[in-house]
């Protein structure tokens, strides 16, 4: 049976009881990422569904406070009404894992710490979580950070919550920095570049004054028969027009040209649902220094992997049947790391979701985890 504490006090008591009984708790906002991570059966699911709703949102302050279980879709529509956005482009894994889009909760978004294409320049979830209220594995409620955009009072525990995958504390409320939604955008594309040429063109454009907001590359056979390299511009119309002309000039050797709006929409949407990658093999999310993306891809025989590249090379979504060991070794050789997103239950049982850390760092990380959760209540073994 799922545990559903109704308020902060019940949540504290539930966690405290679990800690002393030696029960593990799997935290759930809505459960969109249930088919990710090592399958676990011997733990109780703790739903944070009671902590839902937007508590405070004053658009000119650029700050929004909401219950952790507030559906992302509700937050996004409140922001859209005021021409604002979450600039990190929350990444909804549900469609990839076979669920409904938009049901994911803001707590799940924060805890998974996954950001979309705009992360390249606008920062990740970590750069937009200003503060939070949570219950630690000791069953103590605590707050950290603040509700204003600029704050250095006390340790920045918000950073730790982003990407913690429910292993540190149960979030009840989060305060996020929000930003104006760009008034207009444009996408420019070039065809037939290989990964190295694509990376080099991105590097040149990102080093220019064109203020690129996102840059992605699709090999032949993903979006179309040709390879497609795409850069996105956004902002006020006169600025976007001037910068599009700049991209066409700087990227003339590669033939960067403005794409139709419908083509552009398709390109960026495909990076959100990853529909361009086959569903069956294991799917990985590989984070690496952009310049090493081509080296990483060269570690595989062309027929063995399907992939797309985001963040100008800094992120590769990879579908492959090759052994996990091979993916992780290749990522590590390129100073990167690989997260296992989707795989059969057998693989997920054998392969940890997150890349293992060097020893000294792993020990430090372990001590930090125990600082929040000394009895390992939130260690379901999923990650």
């Amino acid at each position, binding site marked *: 049976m799922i545990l559903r504490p109704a308020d902060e006090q019940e949540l504290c008591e539930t966690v405290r009881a679990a*800690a*002393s009984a*030696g*029960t593990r708790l799997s935290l759930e906002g809505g459960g969109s990422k249930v088919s990710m991570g090592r399958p676990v059966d011997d733990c109780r699911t703790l739903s944070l569904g009671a902590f839902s709703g937007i508590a405070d949102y004053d658009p*000119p302050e650029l*700050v929004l406070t909401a219950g952790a279980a507030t559906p992302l879709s509700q937050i996004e529509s409140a922001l859209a009404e005021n021409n604002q956005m979450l600039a990190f482009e929350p990444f909804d894994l549900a469609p990839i894992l076979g669920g409904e889009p938009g049901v994911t909760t803001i707590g799940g978004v924060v805890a998974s*710490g996954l950001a979309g294409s705009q992360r390249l320049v606008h920062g*990740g979830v970590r750069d937009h979580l200003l503060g939070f209220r949570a219950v*630690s594995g*000791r069953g*103590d*409620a*605590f707050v*950290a950070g*603040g509700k*204003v955009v*600029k*704050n*250095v*009072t*006390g*340790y*920045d*525990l918000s*950073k*730790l919550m982003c*990407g*913690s995958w429910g292993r540190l504390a149960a979030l009840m409320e989060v305060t996020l920095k929000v*930003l*104006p*939604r760009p008034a207009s955008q444009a996408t420019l594309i070039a065809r037939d570049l290989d990964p190295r040429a694509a990376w*080099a063109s991105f*590097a040149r454009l*990102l*080093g220019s*004054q064109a*203020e690129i907001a996102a840059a992605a590359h699709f090999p032949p056979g993903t979006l179309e028969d040709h390879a497609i390299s795409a850069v996105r511009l956004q902002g006020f119309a*006169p*600025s976007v027009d*001037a910068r599009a002309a700049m991209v066409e000039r700087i990227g003339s050797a590669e033939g960067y040209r403005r794409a139709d709006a419908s083509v552009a929409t398709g390109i960026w949407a495909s990076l959100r649902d990853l529909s361009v990658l086959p569903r069956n093999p294991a799917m990985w999310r590989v*984070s690496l*220094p952009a*310049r090493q993306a081509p080296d990483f891809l060269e570690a595989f025989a062309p027929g063995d992997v399907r992939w797309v590249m985001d*963040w100008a090379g800094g*992120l590769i979504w990879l579908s492959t049947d090759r052994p996990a060991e091979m993916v992780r070794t290749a990522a590590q050789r390129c*100073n990167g790391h690989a997260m296992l997103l989707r795989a059969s239950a057998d693989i997920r049982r054998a392969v940890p979701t997150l*890349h*293992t*850390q*060097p020893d*000294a*760092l792993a020990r*430090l*990380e372990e001590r930090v985890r125990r*600082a929040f959760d*000394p*009895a*390992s209540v939130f*260690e379901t*073994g999923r990650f």
Partner: protein
Amino acid sequence: MSLKMPEPDEGVIARRAEIAAALRAIVGEDNVIDSPTGLRPYESDGLTAYRQVPLLVVLPETTAQVSRILAWCSEQGIKVVPRGSGTSLSGGALPLEDAVLLGLGKFNRVLEVDYEDRLAVVQPGVTNLAITKAVEDAGFYYAPDPSSQIACSIGGNVAENSGGVHCLKYGLTTNNVLGAELVLMDGEVVRVGGRTLDASGLDLLGVVVGSEGLVGVVTEVTVRLLPKPEAARAMLIGFPSVEEAGHCVADVIASGIIPAGMEMMDRPAIHAAEAFVKVGYPLDVEALLIVELDGVAAECTHLLEEVEAIAGRHGAVGIRVSTTEEERNAFWAGRKAAFPAVGRLAPDYYCMDGTIPRRQLPRVLKRMGELSEHYGLGVANVFHAGDGNLHPLILYDANKPGELDRAEEFGNDILRLCVEVGGVLTGEHGVGVEKRDLMPEMFGEDDLKQQQRVKCAFDPDLLLNPGKVFPTLHRCAELGRMHVHHGKVPFPDIPRF
């Protein structure tokens, strides 16, 4: 001074000569300072009201030396205070009588610049401005720009999570660093973050930034570089009231514009700055806004018009737009010189640093005026208007008995007010010793304990920079205690990392 620091350990003080010898064996004869005249310059940081001569100063040159120093001090139970350039305004680098002051001034090299991946790897003692200087010929810069940028070190910026006038658009230090090498108090060297945008496990870099020298010594930093914008234009806008200026700021942001910088000064600050630099600030207004817009030329032109129209709707008087780089710099000159300018109005000034929700500005300024009368001390306000970060400058004379104490009480009242209206104690200068005892205004006991438990994960013996940030230092063992069923941790079989 009312500030209470941890009781010095007389035993350690008595061992000074022995400690100096041990450290010399690690860093060489000249890199340990122990003469009274040599130690004098280190007795305070930018918060000069507090002074303490350190036990001794050690100036390592390599990460290996830092590691050996910390390991040795850790073994011997000797406290260590890290120091960059000593410009902290919150007393973060204030020495302790029984602690080794570890200066990072010799870590002053830019190690690598990668223009294609737009990052630089630098040692912690490199100054903030030196990073920009190293890359500006190639058209790049490092975005966070504290006013102290010619002097402050990147290691200090990381420790304080420093900001600058451009952080509304470009972020604070935390948003502009990718990785760091960190030496823990036991001498262990770890790398947090790296050259990727996402961390592979917990975002430990995120908590190292802003940890005020309490979790480890930063020995290398990887920062992001940005291409310099094509154009930057500034406007000066006067307002008949602070309220109108505040509404204008809110409307600019509500219209979707995030200016590169948006600074406000109140009447006393405007007058002081104009008297000091004579750049033509209007003297007949209650508030002055400096708005900077950057980007491609077309963007600047477009946004200047938009902002001008918004300002017009709020009764702006005398809008001026910079047409040349000299003029833009002149507009900023007064703001950038605001501290020394205000410094001429009184023998001493005390710079505060709270953040408030911007909508509370009129209320906060009104109350600040009342407090100013109550304490009989003047106050001038410069204000990062875009993000609600206030810098009230309290004027006093340290030579007049009781004035420093009154200035501090006034300052504390201002910070309490910031918290009361939904804001925070510090926007960019850090807690240090200055706001340490005010932490309970903003955080409860459990909140502070949770923060300290994180500190314990890095430095379980509390030897690194003690007496800072936390009003009460609990022993780590005491904080870690928890009632666990039959003394067993559940599921001992699950791998812990």
